[in-house]
């Protein structure tokens, strides 16, 4: 039984009991517990099931390296799967549910996989892909899909909020153990701007648990005193519960602050993602203990020796009354001593080394603890819980020498420095033979933009193991004088990768390397036999070190087994790549503040409020929202569009055209510049006039269009499409800054400076005249000209341009006056039947007139000549962007598809984007095609479907009928007609 001890527990506050539930059962813990320590204290050893064999799983570790103890935490809008109980603090009312079992944790049907384990060896998934072919789709995939995945997907919208924060520091120290604290102190004293972050809720790391004294005081006292000093330094910032998740180029460090995981719903953001620019990073990230590979090492109750010590010392939780220690090093003896100190029984320390001396083993012996030298565990007995261990000679094959009853096993295979951050950005590792560990190679660090080291690894993260070594390492690398400690010297460990060393297949099949993904020693050996020599390939083939823990426990053991199988040295095998994040971070933290109204910037015109209040049905146009139409009560979208068109054609309509791009181009070379940008000539445009223009890319493809206005001798205003404003402005600056840098031209993007309103329809002039202030008569403001003045009290520039085919004025006023003008026009127009119209009415009216639309008639492969726009292309100009490309043989080919109008024989509307088929099939056996639909609408003006499309030799084939196969085998028949369906002679707009 695991239980709460009556005394001790440096992190818990027994005056503050907290209650929580696990699988619906009520349990008690204390303030300061982690979920894991609370569960263990409540004798909940069985916490979940493994991924593949559904074997019972209990706690192994006490920190970020924990592979097993993942739960579904919370309920409803605060439910989150795969929460690591060892790194989440207990809070009152926490609800946890175990994962990966059915129907219950205690009795699990999936565990049948366990009995058939030999049919699911390493690489099982891959083998199912390969043979037999049909089996993957029909047999394996459905089964694997159902059983794959750990935890349940949250179903509700997340109730919490998240945010980012940006920080800058000369030095970021990662890890708040004694190494990190000492490093921060030195850097702080040197006047550097220091940020010290620690992933847990407590400073000090392992030193207080290990019971060392620093400067003659218990480590706890030294830690508290030093943190207090740091807290008073103005240049030092301290942050607990903040985990450095990844390090990137240029000292860009991501850190994950768990602000309110321990206090859900208290109004604070749950997580904050820090995006830090660090001048330099010190990793004081400590080390992670390695398991030992012996048969049954995955049975609940088998834990890391350091973790057992943590539970006893930090949280006063005993994993069992009788704990057997199994080790290959001196450090595990600290656990033996801590257990005995807490009044618990250690039946034996099983040490794989033949001769064990050293201060710590001697101290254990002095306390009466039995030390078995040169021994190993042959097998752990137990199902859902350890019941005993069978002892053997480490040098042998596993014959039982002795059986010891126990309810927990504390194992230690040595320590591996946490080298993740060091490695994220290219730092290399060196294999330390004596300590059997990969540690940072100071000669090959991750480098910054100056080619110098960007990271310094200190303390245990650099391979120093005792407190003495740790502080000496900090002093040597960061500066200052190392504080004295009383840490006992440790004798050398002996690498042990398999226990016992001669274990046969039956035992190796029960030696777990990766308890989360169920990868065993035998699986890695099989992979090696099957030809997997690369550690990266072996990882993927066996799933070793995948998923949420990314092999924090299994990595080194696995590659040691692989190396052994391949008869090569460990450094020759190397490690898998360390990639961010160090431990999983929440999706919410990645999204930050971007949700709801501020998920994405929504651009609003100055009249947006009016539209919203007057039935606007919005559509997105780039990041803008624009009224697609204005619905009246009880009216459908389609009816609204038809009504708006009918009204504009017969009376007068208003369109919010504020989103149109408006780029001003000025300078002595502005005319020359625009002549290069547009296919037509803009330099000759008289002041006061407007001209339609086309812009192409260097490859000749039509890119944007719009009306160009000559404002003064050296100033033009270029209208672009709504979606093209920023792109074309960038295009202009690109040419000016990179190619024609000596041309005297300035540009400015004035898109947002002006609200623009199109007033279109037979009554348009009457509305403007009623508003008064400017001469808008046919003579006073002829078509394709503009005038400035004050219209209805607003500072206005009026362009006489028409995209609808009606008598039309586009009025630009300062954006701040847009709403006032819109309202004034609505009021003045009332007696003339004015109605607003939206983008769909605009689209249909332009199609009725045969005007092209960028993005409908163009798709990046269409040149102006395809659209019969030769009239807008100057033949006199020596050059313009795209001219040379348009003269290439394929661009000038008469075989190119050209724009025509299309009308179905039955008046129906052609589906959008459908192709016209031709005789025969192509090389791929597909039906040949000869054209496609680019725009298609129901025209309320004409009472039938109208369309435009690109057709081979189209303009020469007027009257021909083409077949357009649509969905469901239906073939639409449409006749080629002139693309201008309405008022071809332009009588309506020229009044």
């Amino acid at each position: 039984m695991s239980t709460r001890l009556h005394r001790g527990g440096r992190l818990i506050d027994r005056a503050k009991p907290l209650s929580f539930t696990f699988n619906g059962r009520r349990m008690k813990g204390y303030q300061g517990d982690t979920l894991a320590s609370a569960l263990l204290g409540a004798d909940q050893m069985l916490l979940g099931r493994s991924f593949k064999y559904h074997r019972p799983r209990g706690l192994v570790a006490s920190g970020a390296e924990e592979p097993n103890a993942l739960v579904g935490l919370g309920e409803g809008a605060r439910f989150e799967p795969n929460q690591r109980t060892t790194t989440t603090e207990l809070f009152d009312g926490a609800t946890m549910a175990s994962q990966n079992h059915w129907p219950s944790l205690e009795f699990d049907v999936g565990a049948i996989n366990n009995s058939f384990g030999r049919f699911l060896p390493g690489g099982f998934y891959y083998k199912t892909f390969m043979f037999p072919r049909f089996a993957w789709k029909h047999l394996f995939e459905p089964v694997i899909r159902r059983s794959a995945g750990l935890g349940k997907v949250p179903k509700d919208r997340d109730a919490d909020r998240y945010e980012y924060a940006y920080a800058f520091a000369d030095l970021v120290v990662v890890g708040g153990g004694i190494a990190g604290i000492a490093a921060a102190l030195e850097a702080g004293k040197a006047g550097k701007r220091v940020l010290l972050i620690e992933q847990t809720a407590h400073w000090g790391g392992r030193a207080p648990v290990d019971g060392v004294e620093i400067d003659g005081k218990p480590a706890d006292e030294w830690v508290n005193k030093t943190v207090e000093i740091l807290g008073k330094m103005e240049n030092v910032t301290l942050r607990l519960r903040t985990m450095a998740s990844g390090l990137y180029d240029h000292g860009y460090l991501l850190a994950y602050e768990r602000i309110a995981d321990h206090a859900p719903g208290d109004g604070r953001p749950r997580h904050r993602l820090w995006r830090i620019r660090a001048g330099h990073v010190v990793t004081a990230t400590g080390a992670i203990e390695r398991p030992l590979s012996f048969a049954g090492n995955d049975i609940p109750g088998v834990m890391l020796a350091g973790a057992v010590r943590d539970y006893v010392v930090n949280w006063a939780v005993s994993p069992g009354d009788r704990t057997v220690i199994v080790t290959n090093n001196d450090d595990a003896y600290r656990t033996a001593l801590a257990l005995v100190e807490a009044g618990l029984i250690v039946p034996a320390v099983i040490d794989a080394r033949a001769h064990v001396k050293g201060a710590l083993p001697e101290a254990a012996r002095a306390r009466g603890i039995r030390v078995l030298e040169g021994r190993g565990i042959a097998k752990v007995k137990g199902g859902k819980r350890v019941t005993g261990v069978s002892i053997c000679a480490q040098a042998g094959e596993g014959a039982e020498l002795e059986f010891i009853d126990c309810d927990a096993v504390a194992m230690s295979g040595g320590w591996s420095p946490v080298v993740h951050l060091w490695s994220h950005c290219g730092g290399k590792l060196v294999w330390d033979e004596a300590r059997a560990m990969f540690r940072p190679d100071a000669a090959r660090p991750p480098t910054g933009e100056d080619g110098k080291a960007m990271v310094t690894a200190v303390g245990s993260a650099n391979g120093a193991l005792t407190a003495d070594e740790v502080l000496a390492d900090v002093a040597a690398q960061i500066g200052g004088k190392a504080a004295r400690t009383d840490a006992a010297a440790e004798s050398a460990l002996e690498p042990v990768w398999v226990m016992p060393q001669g274990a046969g297949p039956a035992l190796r099949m029960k030696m777990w390397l990766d308890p989360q993904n169920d990868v065993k020693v035998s699986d890695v050996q099989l992979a090696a036999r099957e030809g997997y020599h690369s550690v990266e390939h072996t990882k993927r083939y066996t799933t070793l070190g995948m998923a949420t823990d990314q092999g924090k426990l299994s990595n080194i053991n696995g590659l040691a087994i692989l190396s052994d199988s391949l008869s090569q040295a460990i450094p020759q095998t190397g490690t898998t790549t360390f990639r961010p994040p160090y431990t999983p971070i929440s999706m919410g933290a990645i999204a930050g503040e971007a949700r709801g109204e501020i998920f994405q910037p929504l651009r609003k015109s100055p009249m947006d409020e009016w539209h919203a209040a007057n039935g606007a049905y919005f559509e997105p146009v780039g990041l803008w929202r624009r009224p697609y139409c204005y619905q009246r009560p009880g009216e459908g979208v389609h009816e609204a569009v038809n009504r708006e068109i009918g009204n504009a054609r017969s009376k007068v309509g208003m369109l919010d055209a504020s989103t149109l791009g408006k780029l001003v181009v000025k300078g002595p070379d502005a005319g020359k510049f625009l002549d290069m940008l547009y296919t037509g000539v803009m330099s000759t445009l008289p002041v006061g006039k407007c001209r339609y223009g086309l812009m192409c890319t260097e490859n000749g493809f039509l890119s944007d269009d719009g009306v160009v206005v000559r404002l003064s001798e050296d100033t033009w205003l270029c209208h672009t499409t709504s979606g093209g404003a920023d792109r074309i402005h960038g295009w202009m600056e690109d040419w000016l800054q990179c190619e024609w840098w000596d041309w005297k031209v300035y540009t400015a993007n004035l898109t947002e400076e002006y609200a623009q309103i199109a007033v279109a329809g037979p009554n348009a002039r009457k509305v403007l005249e009623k508003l008064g202030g400017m001469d808008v008569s046919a003579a006073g403001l002829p078509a394709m000209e503009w005038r400035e003045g004050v219209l209805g009290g607003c500072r206005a520039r009026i362009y006489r341009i028409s995209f609808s085919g009606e008598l039309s004025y586009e009025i630009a006023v300062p954006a701040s006056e847009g709403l006032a003008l819109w309202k004034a026009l609505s009021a003045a127009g009332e007696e003339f039947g004015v109605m607003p119209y939206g983008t769909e009415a605009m689209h249909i009216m332009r199609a009725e007139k045969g005007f092209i639309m960028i993005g409908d008639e163009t798709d990046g492969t269409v040149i102006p000549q395809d659209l019969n726009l030769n009239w807008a292309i100057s033949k006199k100009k020596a050059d313009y962007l795209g001219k040379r490309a348009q003269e290439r043989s394929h661009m000038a080919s008469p075989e190119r598809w050209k724009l025509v109008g299309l009308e179905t024989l039955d008046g129906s509307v052609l589906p959008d984007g459908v192709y016209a088929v031709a005789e025969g099939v192509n090389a791929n056996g597909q039906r040949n095609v000869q054209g496609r639909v680019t725009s298609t609408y129901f025209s309320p003006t004409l009472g039938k479907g109208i369309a435009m499309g690109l057709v081979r030799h189209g303009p020469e084939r007027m009257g021909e009928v083409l077949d357009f196969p649509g969905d469901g085998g239906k073939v639409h028949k449409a006749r080629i007609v002139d693309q201008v369906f309405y008022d071809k002679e332009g009588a309506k707009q020229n009044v």
Partner: protein
Amino acid sequence: MSNAVSALQGKTYAGFATVTEAGLQGMITLRGDLSSAKVKKAVKAAAGVDVPAQRRIVLKDGKGAGWMSPDELLILVPYAEARAAVDALSAALAGEHALVADVSDARAMFRVKGARADQVLMKLCPVDLPSLAEGELRRTRAAQVAAALWKSDRDEFTIVSFRSVASYVFGALETSARPGSEIS
């Protein structure tokens, strides 16, 4: 001009810092050779200050000028005076290769005020705010949109964005200023 309204018409939110849309502000873009004597003289006349140095903003008596790029200044004047200032600048720079444009209505301006005002901006702008000097104009982004900011008073920052995204910027500032999310 009496019809003119700012994007959010002075909307305000009191969180752990106060966020306010600052109303109409005259702003003029001037592009030209910032070292030219004519430009210097015209700027002094229009804004009452000298051409600011790189990344600086100089404000005096409700007017001022900010450095936007090697060939661009932002001139600040009261909204009602913007049109006249544009005309005056244009006249003063006649014959000089320069561009003067009224952008008063293309922008929205916000103030964030309070002892923790910097913590609101820390969440949205990748700017080293503790190192932001007095009189420094920083062009940056606020979450997903372009922005410029400067320290306009003790415990006060001014932020300028495009007008169309005013409600987005206000929403981001409001969210960042919500009580409980103080950084320290």
